[in-house]
């Protein structure tokens, strides 16, 4: 009896002591006062990493603190997102988020997080989907491609990055809108999908505008899934111009662990927005084929809700979710 009270007392005091020690003493005025951990839930070298690397020097220049980028890959991002909310909520830890991943993954099986668990505060860019063919391809325009697909159902092969991804869902939508049947071949990441395209293993790639930017001497894009033409590719039409209502891509943003003070979140949202406004940053991102957008903390929830509808519909058609 005495013993258990002693244990209780010590546990209590220990809890109190540590509670005091870790009580977040964060104020938005002097934030950030130290470097910020920026976790990418994918491996290095992908688009998520590269866009974060683009932000890194601008953040340092504008706000005086370092962004320390680390990686927590696994489960198509699920490993990182499922652990996000157990990380320190002092505003010095944030994590990259990707659409459609954070919407599709939790609908498949229990992956340790729900879309609502992810406390995103900014979507800062996207890589628009695009149909890419090799420079010497027989398809000169989207019409050539659709004609071929109509004459040869199923024989038009697209490489793309993974299943249930932006590429895959766009291909499903395209098939439906154009009234054709094409074959989607999933590869591990954009690099492998491009390799298959350049090696003529497939007829075309459902990729991103970043593919067109990176391999501009070897490929050409037939259409991009944007509202307006990409500034780096004024000659490439949008799907909309060609009569297909597809505006899609892989959207990337940043989230904080749930429970991070609101004023810190607002401040971070402002900061990321300011980087997005920087002319030099814009130029570099656009040269790599990224398209900048500004979905700040106030518009985030609506944006996710709107995107969820479209993604869920295509994912069901694609057979990725039931």
């Amino acid at each position: 009896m005495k013993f258990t009270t002693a244990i209780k007392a010590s546990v209590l005091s220990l809890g109190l002591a540590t509670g005091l020690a870790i009580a977040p003493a964060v104020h938005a005025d002097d934030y950030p006062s130290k470097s910020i951990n920026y976790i990418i839930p994918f491996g290095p070298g992908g688009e998520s990493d590269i866009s974060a690397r683009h932000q890194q020097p601008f953040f340092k220049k504008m706000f005086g603190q370092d962004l320390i980028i680390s990686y927590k890959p696994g489960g198509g991002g699920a490993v990182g997102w499922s652990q996000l909310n157990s990380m320190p909520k002092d505003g010095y830890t944030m994590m990259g988020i990707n659409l459609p991943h954070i919407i599709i993954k939790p609908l498949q099986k229990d992956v340790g997080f729900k879309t609502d668990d992810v406390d995103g505060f900014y979507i800062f860019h996207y890589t628009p989907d695009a149909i890419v063919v090799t420079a010497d391809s027989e398809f000169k325009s989207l019409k050539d491609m659709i004609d071929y697909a109509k004459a040869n159902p199923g024989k038009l092969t697209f490489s793309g990055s993974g299943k249930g991804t932006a590429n895959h869902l766009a291909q499903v939508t395209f098939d439906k809108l154009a009234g054709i049947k094409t074959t989607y071949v999933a590869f591990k990441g954009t690099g492998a999908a491009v390799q298959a395209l350049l090696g003529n293993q497939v007829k075309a790639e459902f990729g991103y505008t970043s593919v067109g930017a990176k391999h501009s001497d070897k490929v050409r894009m037939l259409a991009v899934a944007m509202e307006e033409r990409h500034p780096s590719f004024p000659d490439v039409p949008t799907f909309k111009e060609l009569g297909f209502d597809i505006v899609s891509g892989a959207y990337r943003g940043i989230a904080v662990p749930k429970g991070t003070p609101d004023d810190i979140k607002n401040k971070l949202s402002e900061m990321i927005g300011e980087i997005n406004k920087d002319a030099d940053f814009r130029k570099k991102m656009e040269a790599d084929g990224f398209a900048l957008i500004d979905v700040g903390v106030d518009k985030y929830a609506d944006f996710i809700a709107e995107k969820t509808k479209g993604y869920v519909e295509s994912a069901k058609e694609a057979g990725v979710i039931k």
Partner: protein
Amino acid sequence: MTTKSVAKRRDISSPVMAALFIAIGAIVIWDTTTYTDADSYVFPRTIAIVMIGLSVLLTIQWFLGWKPSADDPGATVDKSIPRRVLLVIAMIGAALAMPYLGFLIAGLIAFAAIMLIAMYDPWTPYRLAVYPIAGAIIVIGFYMLFSHVLQVPLPEGTMVTLPF
């Protein structure tokens, strides 16, 4: 024919392991029925079937008393079992304690425990003085290398916080 030689020839580890692998294969096949995409189950299901087939083959080998090579050790366990088990427990314990105690403290405790497990020589005053210090230097050194130079976000622990 002594019982010993019978036991040696009729080492039952092979059919036990075969049964275990068959069970694993069966669980895998059951799991594959929940996949939504045909691309997902072709591979694991095929492999599971092959593995079950091989397990059956292993059982037949055993039944015929045929050992294909003299190198096959069968089941052998010797020497200190307690120390082995303690080592594994210490390592898993350290991993599980990390999120609560933080990496450094969990690492120090694990290091000390494993040092005791691996210690066969008598504890002379010299060793008593030098080994723990060496251990602390190694653990703290690696901790600093990883957390500060390589910028690995090592677990900090929810129960104890460190000044650095």
